[in-house]
């Protein structure tokens, strides 16, 4: 049974001038347990809306979402969300930022210390736990955001272009690290990106979205074992295929 099943998801937004903007038009796909699944499409095509619906930030107009075969209750599901910007509380220390997520999810106070220690260690920031976010670099802040998403032991990890605001070298380092963390923690990941190379490097499977209104164009399995090399000819070939399918170049 797939971890997440999404069927015929539809969403329109009303615009200032009164017209409606159709963003999702019957989106259907699934993700297996512990699968790293990339949602790939051009910017602004509506991929992020799928994540926002899963996180309960936006109600869908129609469609069905199942988690472990059951209807999704957005109030109960533990969703770890990593955004494009870190979105940390700058007035709280790194540790307090993670405790914020634990408290919000009603995790008993007694578990906080051990959990925070574990995930802060996992992202390699153990000596920074009493620092405030603005004392950290952008890449380190994004690590905190990843740790915050994992510390609640989420049913699903949502990532919305988490590395697109970082310089390429930092992004490369964090991608490799994300895969290491994912191997250790084994989560179902939905990773939104517009970067085809990033997608083929990270994903088990790639779901390609059409431009707005978004539908699923096709799915690709990345059948290349890890550790992968960015320069691997198989990845380059897949990337070309994707770019051609998206109608770029």
């Amino acid at each position, binding site marked *: 049974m797939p971890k997440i099943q999404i069927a015929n998801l539809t969403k329109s937004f009303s615009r200032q001038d009164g017209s409606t903007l159709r963003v999702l038009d019957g989106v259907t796909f699934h993700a297996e347990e512990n699968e790293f699944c990339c949602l790939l499409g051009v910017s602004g095509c509506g991929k992020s809306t799928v994540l926002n619906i899963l*996180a*309960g*930030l936006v109600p869908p107009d129609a469609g069905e979402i199942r988690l472990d075969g059951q209807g999704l209750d957005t*109030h109960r599901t*533990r*969703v770890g*969300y990593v*955004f494009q*910007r870190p*979105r940390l*509380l*700058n*007035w*709280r220390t790194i540790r307090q930022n993670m405790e*914020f*997520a634990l*408290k*919000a*999810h009603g995790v008993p106070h007694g578990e906080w210390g051990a959990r925070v220690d574990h995930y802060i260690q996992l992202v390699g920031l153990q000596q920074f736990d009493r620092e*405030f*976010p*603005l*004392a950290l670099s952008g890449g380190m802040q994004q690590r905190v955001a990843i740790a*915050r998403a994992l510390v*609640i032991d989420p049913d699903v990890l949502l990532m919305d272009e988490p590395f697109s605001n970082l310089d390429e070298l930092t992004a490369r380092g964090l991608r490799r690290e994300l895969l290491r963390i994912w191997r250790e923690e084994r989560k179902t990941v939905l990773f939104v990106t517009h970067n085809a190379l990033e997608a083929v490097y990270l994903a088990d499977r790639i779901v390609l979205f059409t431009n707005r209104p978004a539908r699923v164009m096709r799915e690709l399995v990345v059948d290349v074992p890890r550790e992968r090399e960015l320069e691997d000819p198989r990845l380059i070939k897949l990337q070309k295929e994707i770019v051609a399918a998206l109608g770029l170049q």
Partner: protein
Amino acid sequence: MKQEREARAYVVRFSSLLAILLVWWVVSLFFPPNFIPGPHRVLAEVWKILSSGEFFFHMAHTLKRVIVGFVWAFLVSVVIGMLMGVNRVVEQFFEVEVLVGLTIPGLAWAMIALMWFGIRDMAAIFAIFIIVLPMITVNMWEGTKALDRELIEMAVAFKASRRMVVRDVVIPQLVPYLFAATRFGFALAWKVVVLSEMLGLSNGIGFMVNYSFGLFNMDGVLAWTLAFTMIMIVMEYGLVKVMERRVTRWRPAMTVW
């Protein structure tokens, strides 16, 4: 390193005060003392009104009026300002009043309040209230509009309760605006209360400045003004800045000011 920089900042500030005193003293040498008295004369007068307790009697009256008027204005305008930031209809409703309110001269309000309430504390309190109201409202309005919606979204995605969102996400973002509002609001309140006291009331700092003016006593005018200003500075550095530094220590250290 940091202490060194802070120590230097204090030295610079202290020298600036000394320089003013020096310029004052030099200028006073060229004028008769009832026109520009030297700093030593004024400081002697300050000492006199402080040691006789006269100053504290009048300061207590002034302070009471400022605090009552300010607290009322603060409570009302924080609510209005935040509602303006959140709701478009409320914003449109109050926008004109706030902008007009900001331009009405304090002197006009001080007079109107005296005509309405007579020679009573209420005249000063009302004048302060009505002058400070639009100033704090504007600050809170801006602060609420500048709230980072992405951060609130993050909190909601992590299933934070409404209480957590307000306490941990919204209020900390409003703190800098609250401080700015307090600072500007108090500065206005001091000016207005002195006007009210000059125009009509029978005690308070403004009354004594005006009383000295009536006797053409320049030492008195300057001494009362100076003593009052010193109290203001002590409150700003001793209270507002200390509090502000405590609640905004998460900001990366920039230049000390």
